[in-house]
């Protein structure tokens, strides 16, 4: 009876699931790719003109911005939605801090922390002469947290009609927090991200996609044009999104730097008196301009110059050949000093923060990894936009896939995250480790504000997705697979894409249905385990022949997979197990008994959570294990020799 109950529940859920799929697909298909592109780009892109003056001594910034914004939907807009992300650092009850376990755990931390915030002193629609400063409502659409002030709605006296443009002028003041995560000031090092009032994305149905700022890295914003003037004490060296078009002395103490960049989703900048500026350039295929590589190195890390330049150039060249040429004129790499290390390892349009620690052994390639990841995100967040709050895999997951590819190619045979005498670890191995240790998670928890912790986020969005893509690449073939990504990227660049578009384009390109892959492994807690269950060989009387039987099992998930049975003497029987069934028994008669059987002999499917059970020998043959034990013995012998005499 109990089983019947479960079967009924299963069918109800299955039915609901299928219905849900149909509705979702229809809904998304109506917003086709063309519409996304029209909404995202074009001449009526949002333009930001920001004039900011920073006071590092007081840890304050005063700014005035003028935003040109056009309603590109066919629906009247009655309110204006802005992100004030800096407020995430202004209140211990903000969603950001709620999601930050270290602050939850330690009240002492909060006492010591210098909070920051953003205050919009005045905001008006200047081409309507409409002051909207007081008519604001804080909204928390993601988690309903009344203490969160990162998402604000301003009521408009009259709607902005389709095609109509408004000019918004906002005067704002920032209190700059300690760098706990991404942004803030630490000593004289400043990194400014999420620092200005920014208009949220307006969806084609007239709804604002206004998210709050969350602990897990996620972005969703419009492609816009930026022109930013930064006034700062003259001892600071400044790096920012886009091209520096001027740097002029305002008086004997202040400098004004001007930056401009079109068609990006954000503007971030860094300043530090002890930066060492290193410049190089690279000309990429199809670009009629050189891309300037600007390294702003913390003065103690000048020795890392070549390491950075080499990997930046290599990664850009890799993308040029395997995806697209980097489309901007500058790429700035910020090497934060130790006190600003909490800002390390993040990417913003045309600027990224690296992570170099002098004390780490050269065998650990984390610096390279952080740069590669940051450059990957220049493409899969910077150029191919998506709602990272809802579908972070499209940003981080694909970026990590490229990161693994580049790490492999850059270090060739020594392509390791850690390449030391005693231990060698590949980048993909670390990603796989994060994935195979994941615990079950409900579907709703895959939204970036619902995800339980960093481990789940990284495991699901970075690791699992990147391994899925690598596994698909391995079975489809590198050339074809990368060909698809090139085609797809070209189609969706400078626009917002989503899972439905990705899947549909994937299926169209390969002329097949890969729903089994994406539906199983993206945004679900499904994992994969295919195994050799048993191997048996029985001699048939005195015939000298053997009845061989090999049983394969799908313990979890489904993936069409190659199977191989090797007989004594080396004869190989290859099979392809495509049918979605749990068990497969292979029985045959041969003159030789089975030596071993193996699932996925090429180790192509890295999503498999248990590679131990992927093969089975008939009789124990342990030469490799012996070597493994010898190697371990080595390590221990060395420890013993050091212990004492």
């Amino acid at each position, binding site marked *: 009876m109990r089983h019947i109950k479960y079967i009924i529940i299963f069918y109800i859920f299955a039915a609901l699931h299928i219905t849900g799929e149909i509705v979702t697909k229809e809904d998304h298909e109506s917003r086709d790719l063309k519409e996304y592109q029209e909404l995202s780009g074009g001449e009526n892109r949002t333009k930001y003109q920001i004039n900011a003056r920073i006071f590092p001594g007081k840890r304050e910034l005063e700014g005035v911005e003028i935003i040109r914004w056009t309603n590109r939907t066919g629906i009247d807009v009655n309110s204006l939605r802005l992100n004030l992300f800096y407020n995430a650092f202004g209140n211990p009850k903000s969603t950001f801090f709620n999601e930050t376990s270290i602050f939850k755990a330690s009240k002492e931390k909060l006492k010591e922390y210098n909070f920051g915030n953003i205050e919009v002193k005045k905001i008006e629609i200047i081409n309507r002469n409409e002051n909207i400063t007081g008519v604001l409502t804080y909204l928390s659409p993601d988690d309903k947290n009344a203490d969160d002030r990162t998402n604000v709605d301003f009521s408009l006296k009259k709607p902005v009609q389709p095609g109509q443009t408004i000019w918004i002028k906002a005067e704002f003041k920032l209190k700059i927090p300690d760098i706990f995560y991404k942004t803030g000031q630490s000593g004289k090092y400043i990194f400014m991200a999420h620092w200005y009032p920014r208009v949220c994305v307006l969806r084609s149905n007239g709804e604002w996609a206004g998210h709050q700022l969350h602990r897990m890295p996620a972005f969703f914003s419009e492609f816009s044009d930026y022109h930013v003037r930064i006034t700062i004490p003259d001892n600071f060296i400044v790096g920012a999104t886009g091209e520096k078009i001027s740097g002029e002395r305002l008086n004997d103490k202040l400098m004004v730097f001007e930056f401009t960049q079109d068609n990006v989703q954000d503007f971030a900048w860094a300043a530090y008196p002890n930066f060492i500026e290193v410049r190089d350039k690279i000309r990429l295929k199809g670009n009629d301009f050189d891309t300037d590589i600007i390294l702003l190195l913390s003065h103690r890390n000048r020795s890392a110059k070549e390491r950075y330049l080499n990997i930046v150039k290599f990664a850009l060249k890799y993308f040029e050949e395997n995806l697209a040429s980097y489309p901007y004129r500058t790429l700035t790499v910020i090497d934060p000093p130790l006190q600003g290390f909490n800002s390390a390892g993040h990417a913003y349009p045309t600027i990224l923060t690296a992570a170099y620690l002098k004390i780490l052994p050269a065998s650990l390639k984390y610096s390279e990894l952080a740069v590669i990841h940051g450059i990957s995100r220049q493409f899969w967040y910077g150029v191919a936009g998506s709602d990272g709050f809802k579908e972070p895999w499209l940003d981080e997951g694909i970026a990590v896939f490229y990161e693994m590819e580049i790490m492999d190619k850059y270090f060739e045979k020594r392509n390791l995250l850690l390449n030391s005498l005693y231990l060698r670890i590949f980048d993909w191995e670390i990603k796989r480790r994060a994935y195979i240790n994941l615990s079950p998670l409900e579907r709703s928890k895959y939204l970036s504000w619902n995800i339980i912790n960093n481990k789940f986020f990284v495991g699901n969005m970075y690791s699992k997705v990147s391994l899925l893509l690598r596994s698909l690449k391995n079975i489809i073939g590198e050339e074809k697979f990368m060909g698809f990504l090139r085609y797809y990227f070209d189609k969706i660049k400078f626009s917002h894409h989503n899972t439905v578009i990705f899947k549909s384009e994937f299926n169209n390109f390969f002329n097949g249905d890969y729903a089994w892959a994406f539906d199983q492994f993206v945004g679900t807690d499904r994992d994969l385990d295919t195994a050799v269950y048993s191997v048996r060989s029985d001699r048939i009387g005195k015939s000298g022949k053997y009845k061989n039987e090999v049983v394969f099992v799908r313990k979890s998930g489904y993936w069409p997979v190659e199977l191989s049975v090797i007989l004594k003497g080396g004869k190989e029987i290859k099979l392809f197990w495509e049918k979605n069934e749990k068990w497969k028994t292979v029985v045959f008669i041969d003159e030789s008994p089975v030596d071993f059987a193996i699932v996925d002999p090429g180790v192509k499917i890295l999503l498999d959570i248990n590679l131990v059970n992927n093969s089975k020998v008939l009789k124990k043959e342990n030469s*490799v294990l012996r070597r493994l034990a010898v190697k371990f013995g080595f390590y221990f012998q060395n420890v*013993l020799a050091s212990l004492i005499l």
Partner: protein
Amino acid sequence: MNILKIIGRGFNLRSIKLAAYAWFYNMLISLIIYFGFYMVFVISAGKSMIAEKIGMYGLFTALLDIFNNFPGSFTLLVSICFYFGILYIITSVFISAGIFSVMMEEEKATFFTLLSASIDNFFRFLKVFLINVINFALALIPMAFLVFAFWMTLERSLNETLFGIFIVIFFIIAMILLVFSVAIYDYSRIIRLKDGRNFFFSFREGVRFVFKNKKNILLLFLFYFISTGVLYIIFKLFMSVAEDFLGMIFVFILYQVFVLIRYFLKIIIINGEFELIRVPYSEIQ
């Protein structure tokens, strides 16, 4: 006395024989451990070809999957390491009892002389070792305190200069404490052999002697650290060839040579310590 002369006196066949004695025990225990590891791997993944298939990338994934899917295997490996580590420490006391005694008596360094000296002096040396556990623990306290103080400082303000200074200070203090605690242990054993009195006496005199001869002892150990460092670099260069099975055998042999030379260098240091104590110890008497 010229420290270089003292070091030079240790370079002889006898020192190699003594080092070989120490290496022999090291090898013996390592072999047992090797079989322990082997059995763990065979029990958990004996029928799988994971190491063969994944081994080409390195061993991380193979080990990860073995440990992940056979949860007891990692604990078992750690237990083997832990218990055999303790066994080795005790064995080390046994070996050193023989080596120190033969060096003291200037006897012929044959296996049986060493073995018999080890048996004769084992319990005396074990007591000296136990009292020196305090010595090692005391050496760890300032290190722990330093790390804690620094951690607290860094928590308040993460400063690159401070971090650099800490690393240098920590390294210097760690090396000095290491040298003195090991030297105290060595001299406790030497004095225990020279003087029939109890292990408390030998420990106390060991401490006194070490602090009276700080400079020479530091120089002796400086030689040891530099030569071990050079040895490690050479070894590392050779290790890069360990890709195939023959390479593994080559590296295995090379590794034994490496361990042997490390013991040889330590014997030279002990010999130097004997040389240093000869004159001053008569003054203690």
